[in-house]
């Protein structure tokens, strides 16, 4: 027997959530499916494999004021930003939850980023497991899986007329109390079949073949549009600058991408990664080598968004396969 909630009861619960908190869920925006703040529960879509942009923007916004700077009393006063509202992100997929687990590592590791921690503590993640995969998904090769509950507070699995419910954390329990749930003898449906990629030990191969000219060739077609970093649930490179804002100044953190020219350029002109190939290598070395070795979790969770959105088809699945073959021609 598993815990169960009917679709009708789920909708009532979502309405209650929306009344008290910010409810974020996948919804149609023109011909895209994006995570947005929902005002009507009917706007939540159910016919999607995954959204076009990742939900990381609700924990790590594209631009965020860190603190404001005001000239006062002959000196300066700094006012750190606070996160006011509680949020529930509904309809996340297991890959994206694993993405949050990865994003937690650099931000929560000592010294903790307090703004990210506030977002994180005030956000509950309610997921729906995947019964269908898309052509570009490869989560099970990257440490996740179509029914992997890691990172969720609550995970739902769709069955006839409702969902099997796994309440995984205290936060989840407080959000969806046992009293709202019933029992069901329904069998757990078969999880989606997901394509695989030979990612095992790719970090070793990458390190061994670090100087291979492969990266220069790959970078030829990159146009540095930064899309890969922006759609990715785990990319977290950021820029910090001061911007004027109505008499005060805001210190703003914003998304950046290691692919953009000038990412590592120092005032004075020296740029250790002026060459496109070195920037291309940096992306995949960070994803597949540095981050996993530093934090013990994968930095690519196999959602496939970069594959879908890269205008010139720089495909991490192809790259993983290629890297595994590097150096094999002759040692």
């Amino acid at each position, binding site marked *: 027997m598993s815990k169960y909630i009917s679709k009708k009861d789920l909708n009532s619960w979502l309405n209650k959530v929306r009344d008290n908190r910010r409810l974020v869920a996948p919804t149609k925006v023109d011909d895209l499916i994006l995570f947005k703040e929902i005002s009507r529960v009917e706007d939540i879509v159910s016919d999607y494999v995954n959204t076009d942009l990742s939900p990381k923007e609700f924990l790590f916004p*594209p*631009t965020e004021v860190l603190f404001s700077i005001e000239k006062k009393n002959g000196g300066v006063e700094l006012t750190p930003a606070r996160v006011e509202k509680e949020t529930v992100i509904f309809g996340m997929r297991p890959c994206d939850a694993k993405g949050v687990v990865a994003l937690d590592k650099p931000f929560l590791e000592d010294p903790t980023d307090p703004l990210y921690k506030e977002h994180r503590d005030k956000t509950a993640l309610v997921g729906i497991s995947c019964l269908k995969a898309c052509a570009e998904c490869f989560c099970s090769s990257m440490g996740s899986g179509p029914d992997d509950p890691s990172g969720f507070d609550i995970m739902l699995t769709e069955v006839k007329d409702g969902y099997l419910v796994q309440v995984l954390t205290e936060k989840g329990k407080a959000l969806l109390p046992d009293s709202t749930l019933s029992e069901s003898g329904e069998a757990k449906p078969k999880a989606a079949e997901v394509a695989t990629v030979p990612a095992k030990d790719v970090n070793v191969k990458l390190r061994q073949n670090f100087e291979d000219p492969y990266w220069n060739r790959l970078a*030829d077609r990159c146009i540095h*549009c*930064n899309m890969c970093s922006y*759609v990715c649930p785990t990319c977290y490179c950021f820029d910090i600058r001061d911007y*004027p804002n109505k008499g005060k100044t805001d210190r703003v953190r914003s998304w950046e991408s290691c692919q953009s020219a000038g990412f590592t350029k120092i005032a004075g002109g020296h740029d250790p990664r002026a060459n496109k190939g070195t920037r291309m290598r940096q992306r995949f070395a960070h994803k597949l080598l540095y981050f996993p070795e530093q934090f013990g979790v994968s930095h690519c969770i196999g959602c496939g968004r970069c594959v879908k*959105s890269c*205008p010139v*088809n720089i495909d991490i699945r192809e790259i993983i396969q290629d890297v595994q073959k590097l150096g094999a021609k002759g040692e």
Partner: protein
Amino acid sequence: MNETEQIRSKAKELLDSKKVDCVIGYERATDEKNARPMFAYNAKDADRLIFDQTCRHNLVRYLLNRKDKVTGIVVKACDSRAVNLLINEHQIARDKLFIIGVACPGLVKTDWNKPGDKLRDACQLCQQRTPVIYDVLIGEAKKVEPPADAYPDVAAMEGKSVEEKRAFWEKEFSRCIRCYACRQACPGCYCSECFVDRLDPLWVGIRIAPGENEMWNTIRAYHLGGRCIGCYACELVCPVNIPLSLLNRKLEKEVMKLFKFQPGLDPETPQPLATFQKDEKLGVAE
């Protein structure tokens, strides 16, 4: 021989004779359905070149990184206008290029793993299927009947009231995530320091906010006024499907009205918005 075979043959000839260092063309993408840019450095690479209606990228962009090398490049009609633009603006040298022009049947509306067969909107309105500059032409030069109205999409916008237009663009720009993919894909956007990257003076802030999104997109369109050659690669790469071509086509229409000028038809004609002549008259061209 079809286009693909002809392109492969020509590319191999150029590479084997070392006439060029590299041929930039297209190959099959990993979804097995669409095309992606590729750089062929030898005959073996050249065997992967293809040409079909999913070859939507404007490859001329890549020439800006290869100014000191001799490069072969596959261009469609709109792309070829970009070649003329860059020669006109002294960004690339004619003698460093071997241009493989392809008579273009028009691109299909397509997405990763979701190829279509319907012709892309801009391609339906295209009046020039044959490249205007090339060293060799592949495919038959097709004549296209000019439509009664070359800009029905622009006319539809012009018919809206100011409030309707404002509401339209507010909605469209609200999705902009300032990834600057549009700028990166455009062969005309090559400033070493883009105005949005300047901090001093700060023209446009980093905030992803309505005012700033609008500033970014409209100013970029203006910087391309009289220069945009109409490939609309910007619209193709936009991850949130903003109809950027509408902005560029409005300015195209105005420039045509004022100066009877279409950018990129040849490498010599001075650009009206970049040139001042002593006997210049202000007003609509006769």
